[in-house]
């Protein structure tokens, strides 16, 4: 006997199949037929339906939920994965699921994963390992802005001003998150440059301290 479907538990049996069908249908309503995936245009369309800006962090979170590989595109498999997990088979339900998704992502245990995903998601070329400064600045603002406004603003200012680095790699990216979490701001009283902090952060701290005095 199929269990009555509730908001919390996964759907099973007939209800499940119906849900999957609707999810697929939803996919096809946005798909670009020539490539078989939802392309940037489709995503934009989806965003307007969700009444969310396509640069909104929640879209990135959605991509994370889908474990989407290529920036700007969703495959059917990814779509299914994400929407199934969100129990959303209509745009209305998807829109409703967004706040909960955000809460889920912001949970400490998930956020690191999301944070590193955000970086990888921006590596558009094959064998690309780093992201240019300007994109990093935008990404930081998007991903960490709400949580660590002061640090992000200061660091972004520094990034734009310095000339040593033209790109940021994953190690530096992750380092910054750890920095925000562990180091007291803006005094940096517990910062020790002799530890293995990425050099760019050593330079950043120096720059802030110099500016202050």
């Amino acid at each position, binding site marked *: 006997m199929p269990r009555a479907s509730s908001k919390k538990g996964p759907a099973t049996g007939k209800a499940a199949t119906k849900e999957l069908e609707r999810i697929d249908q939803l996919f096809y309503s946005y798909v670009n037929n020539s490539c078989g995936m939802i392309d940037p245009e489709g995503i934009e369309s989806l965003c307007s339906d969700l009444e969310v800006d396509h640069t909104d962090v929640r879209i990135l979170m959605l991509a994370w939920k889908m474990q989407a590989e290529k920036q700007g595109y969703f495959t059917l498999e990814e779509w299914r994965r994400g929407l199934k997990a969100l129990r959303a088979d209509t745009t209305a339900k998807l829109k409703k699921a967004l706040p909960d998704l955000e809460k889920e992502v912001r949970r400490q245990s998930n956020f690191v994963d999301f944070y590193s995903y955000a970086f990888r998601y921006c590596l558009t070329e094959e064998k690309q390992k*780093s992201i240019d400064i300007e994109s990093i600045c935008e990404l930081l603002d998007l991903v960490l802005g709400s949580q660590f406004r002061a640090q992000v603003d200061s660091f972004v200012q520094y990034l734009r001003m310095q000339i040593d680095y033209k790109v940021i*790699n994953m*190690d530096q990216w992750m*380092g910054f998150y750890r920095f925000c979490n562990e180091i007291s701001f803006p005094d940096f009283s517990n910062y020790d440059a*002799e*530890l*293995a902090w*990425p*050099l760019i952060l*050593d330079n950043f701290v120096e720059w802030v301290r110099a500016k202050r005095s």
Partner: protein
Amino acid sequence: MTMSQMKTIELEEGWSFMQSGIRKLIRILEGEPEPQFSSDDYIMLYTTIYNMCTQKPPHDYSQQLYDKYKEAFEEYISSTVLPSLRDKHDEFMLTELVKRWLNHKIMVRWLSRFFHYLDRYFISRRSLPGLNEVGLTCFRDMIYQEVKHKARDAVIALIDREREGEQINRALLKNILDIFVEIGMGQMDYYENDFEDNMLKDSAAYYSRKALNWIVEDSCPDYMLKASLFYLYYAEECLRKEKDRVAHYLHSSSEPKLLENVQTQLLVIHSSQLLEKEHSGCRALLRDDKVEDLSRMYRLFFKIPKGLDPVANIFKQHVTAEGIALVQQAEDAASNRADKEGGPQEQAFVRKVIELHDKYMVYVSDCFSNHSLFHKAMKEAFEVFCNKVVAGCSSAELLASFCDNILKKGGSEKLSDEAIEETLDKVVKLLAYISDKDLFAEFYRKKLSRRLLFDKSANDDHERLILTKLKQQCGAQFTSKMEGMVTDLTLAKENQTNFQEYLSGNPNISPGIELTVTVLTTGYWPSYKSSELSLPIEMEKCVEIFKCFYQTKTKHRKLTWIYSLGTCNMIAKFDSKPIELIVGTYQAAALLLFNTSNKLSYSEIKTQLNLADDDLVRLLHSLSCAKYKILIKEPNSRTVSTTDSFEFNSKFTDRMRRIRIPLPPVDERKKVVEDVDKDRRYAIDASIVRIMKSRKVLGHQQLVMECVEQLSRMFKPDFKAIKKRIEDLITRDYLERDKENPNLFKYLA
């Protein structure tokens, strides 16, 4: 009195007989006229005891005899000895005490011989104190314990009088102190507790007073220094005398304790005054070159645990200050001169540093006995100022220039072979203090190449000599390229001979010009940029011919022509007379253009030669704006500009038949520093990879430490640079950061 062998001897009887023997002995000891014991006397006394001990009970009187033996001493001591001591004092008492002691020892010796049989059986069977011990114990308990304090005080008083310069009876003191020692019967307790402790306290008090008398504070600097010198001298004398005292009458075990006491009072307590005070301390001695007094200071403080540490520290500070003063001097001198750097001022700086080193090394060997603390102080001092930048030049560069001056022809050093060898030796020793050794190597290599290629080397042996010394000090890798360069030249000469043979063997192939080619092995020599100079036809031909020749020798090597290093001898036909010009290849190429045109513009020359502006301006300047104006420049300004035009100066002449027109050398410094920085990045990378490969997992700080250690022989890596290289290696997937611990790195195979 005769003895009956068989008859039992009663105690009364036997003891009475013994007593007469004892009384006889006492009379002898008291100095009364009494004949010595004859052997019969002795035998009889001995036998009496023997018999009384071996008789059958109840006539076995061993115990009683043992007791009476002791009583004999007690009686004599209380009746005669003690009274005689009690009425004497000070030195007289001491004399009496010695006499009584010696007497007592004789008495013990004799009586124990008489009573010897007791020792053999009775005493050992009952594990009782032996006769000797009993006798000594009597003296100790009855006499020694009573007079020990008086004796002690009397001795100490005499010691103090001797310290004040009086002559005292040393033999007496030795004898007294022997009592304190011997009374312990193997243990030093009595000596230490009853005499030594007080003696040490008294000595400390004595010297404490003396020191306070002699230490002069807050007086005029001159006086303070003199007082300080005297004090050191005095301290040394006192220690010597105390040692002498021990040798003559104190027990040897007192020596270390006594000397330590004296040292503490005289030196340790006042060490800050003696060492650190500006006008009286070590610093003043160094400032005034008081070599002998420094030696004394060393000798004195050597014996004090950690005594030398402050001395070495002050020495280090002094040498450092002197070195920094030299740096300042050179800086001041350089800023007063507006013209180019690397001049004689900087050379003088190196020479003065060498002199400073020589001077203070002598101090280390003569004053400080080559103690490792002082070698370390020298090293640390020199490392401080030898790494300072002087007038824009790093010390590495200065040192390389200094060597260049010694080794090149017409250099500022005109010294004998011996002097040169010595100087080179000293220069190499200075290199040990410089942290950027790789920078020195690169500058040296650049200058060496100039010397070799332009035949400016004064003496081949000297060149090889310094390379040997550098190899010894810094390892073979340091000098391998340089040695390669020197070898290249030797080979080049051989090669030239072969080339000549090849030419004479092929008379139809003729360059038309006398041609010498030096083939260099790329890896050994500094990198030179090769240019795309368009050669004049005459030279082009030569190059082709040489290429053919070289192909016959080896097919696997590629020749890259560096015309910027070439020289040309050419004859210029001026109106008044022809003059031979010795110029660089670039200059020659430019001049040859005027064989076909009278006047050429800058841009025409540039097009024809295909040289970059900076090269072209330099060479045209040397021909038209410098000492010898071979070309006339229009307009006749001081510098060459791209709109100028040039004409052959047929009116030029000079009294010489042959003139050299050199190109001013380009500033190498920037390139050298760049090259070295690049090499350092590779070296750091290699070091990090090496370390991680063997350790597999390593913490950040540990990695940095080991990296610095590995590279320290050549340079001191910048801490940030290492971090950057680590990050680079992470990006290149050689290493990764541990997921759990961001301070830990893992090697990725």
